[in-house]
């Protein structure tokens, strides 16, 4: 099947692309393109010009096409019925009038949110509604298109099971994810198109990246916390990642020369002992920078993280990595409970494989300490294929 865009939805905002079965990520500030693309693809909105089709049928005006599309938006709606289960049954009846309610309950149980089934839809918060809808949509059969907006931000959802299910679906369906996190692309081992100024840039493969426009340095020193604080306010620095229990920082910026000067300047100023300063490959960092609009004129990248979640838990046997919170839910937040970290194992093709154990390692604060091994290392470990 083919999901084809030939659409313009505003001044300078356009997409002209065809997607076949597989996982595709739309990377960019969500409100500046990716969300809109999903909205067009599910028929929620009509493009100002052009059209979006599924196997030649215009999605906006074809209920038959929309029935084959699963869409999870940023703030989904549930019918205001007596219970969430009843609401899902009603939605399910649109696609399949003879569907059984047991299948819906199974879907909720897989995501470990069966307890929400008895609550009233109006009692659910936005995140809970998203979790319920995600569980329902991923349990649907015979889908041709799956459109998910930032699914990894939904707390309480089993991340491993989600990845596994998306890979299952991708064998027969177009799976399109909107995200502003390059880690999500890496997590799925997906191809990514980068949004820049409202346009989906043409994927050119990892070789199209231009590292010369970008800088990433690994700094090992005796006072990483002080250095982090000093660098965070420096305009030449884009991000500072500080894994826990190490003395190594990864510092990124758009201009390598300015970046190195900023690092060395801070080290001199603070009187910090520098042990090592090396530049590192930049696949993931380039994508992250592109998301934040910090790399001008960067080509989009088809990014391949290089691993396959072969050892992830099966879809039906998933469990929440961190366990339920007080409400049976993990805390809500950007950071998933399990950061996928490269364990050092390789598959037959020489690609890095995560293990269930490493995938479930919890981290304390992703914004400041993503994991013991950073996304850059993941990209490095798997980068052979992408390059």
């Amino acid at each position: 099947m083919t999901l084809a865009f030939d659409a313009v939805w505003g001044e300078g905002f356009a997409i002209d692309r065809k997607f076949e079965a597989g996982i595709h990520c739309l990377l960019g500030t969500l409100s500046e393109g990716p969300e809109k693309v999903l909205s067009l693809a599910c028929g929620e909105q009509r493009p100002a010009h052009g059209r979006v089709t599924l196997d030649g049928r215009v999605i906006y005006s074809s209920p038959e096409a929309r029935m084959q599309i699963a869409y999870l938006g940023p703030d989904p709606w549930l019918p205001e019925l007596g219970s969430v289960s009843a609401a899902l049954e009603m939605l399910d009846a649109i696609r399949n009038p003879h569907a059984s309610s047991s299948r819906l309950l199974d879907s909720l149980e897989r995501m470990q949110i069966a307890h929400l089934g008895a609550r009233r839809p109006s009692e659910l918060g936005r995140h809970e509604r998203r979790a319920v809808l995600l569980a329902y949509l991923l349990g649907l059969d015979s889908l041709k298109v799956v459109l998910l907006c930032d699914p990894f931000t939904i707390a309480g959802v089993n991340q491993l099971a989600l990845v596994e299910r998306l890979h299952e679906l991708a064998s027969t369906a177009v799976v399109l994810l909107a995200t502003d996190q390059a880690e999500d692309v890496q997590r799925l081992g997906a191809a990514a198109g980068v949004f820049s100024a409202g346009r989906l840039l043409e994927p050119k493969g990892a070789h199209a990246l231009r590292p010369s426009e970008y800088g990433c340095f690994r700094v090992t020193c005796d006072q990483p916390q002080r250095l982090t604080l000093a660098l965070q306010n420096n305009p030449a620095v884009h991000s500072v990642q500080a894994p826990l229990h190490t003395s190594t920082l990864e510092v990124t910026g758009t201009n390598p020369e300015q970046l190195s000067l900023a690092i060395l300047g801070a080290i001199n100023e603070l009187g910090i002992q520098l042990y090592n300063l090396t530049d590192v490959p930049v696949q993931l960092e380039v994508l992250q920078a592109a998301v934040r609009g910090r790399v001008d004129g960067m080509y989009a990248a088809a990014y391949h993280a290089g691993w396959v979640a072969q050892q992830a838990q099966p879809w039906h046997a998933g469990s929440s990595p961190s366990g339920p919170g007080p409400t049976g839910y993990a805390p809500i937040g950007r950071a998933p409970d399990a950061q996928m970290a490269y364990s050092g194992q390789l598959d037959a093709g020489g690609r890095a494989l995560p293990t269930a154990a490493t995938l479930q390692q919890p981290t304390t604060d992703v914004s400041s300490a993503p994991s013991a091994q950073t996304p850059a290392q993941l990209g490095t470990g798997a980068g052979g294929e992408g390059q």
Partner: protein
Amino acid sequence: MNDVYLGWVWSRSRLTRTWWIQSGGAALAATLFGLILEHRASPSSSRINTLLTFTLGLILPLLTWATASQLFPNGLFASLAPIATHGASRRGLLLGAGLRALSGATAIVLGSTVVVFLLGGSARAGNFGALLIGTWIAVLGAVAYTAWFLLGSSFGSRAQGRWVFLALDWLLGSSASALALPWPRGHLRNLLGGESVANLEQPAATLTLTLLILVYLGLTCVRTPR
């Protein structure tokens, strides 16, 4: 059929019980206000038609306009979009949602009509025929105005069409010329014993209003993508 039911259920989240209570309360208050004004102006005359003209000519349009605004605040298509993404037909959803809007508005207008009948002196005079006539005109008017403003909701990215339709009905529908033919106001006025539109008799006005309802609904359906 499921789409219609889904539209009915969906509209419940927009047209809540609180909304109907507030609307009904406002309509009742306006009706009582009209009764007081009319009583002061002509305490002894038979005034059922004047009061019904006030109810159906002022309260009904405003009520149906407000109901359509509450139901489709961002316009017809944008408001139905979140459900349509699940594969439901927008036309079915529109029908279900429209039925809820219609039933609620009709109930309120009928309530106002009964209040007019009871407090306006017709009940004491035993003039139950007036109640019967007022009832069916109220129902016809509620259907006409609901269909009219549903059509208006389909114009404009923010349903600005509703304002235009309200203005057209007030400005052009108030006259007795042929310009008033496409709008509900003049025909309702005619049915209540007021000035006729283009010299149409009351049966012809009824027929015209019925045809207009079909046209409004048909146009709304055509404009609404599946």
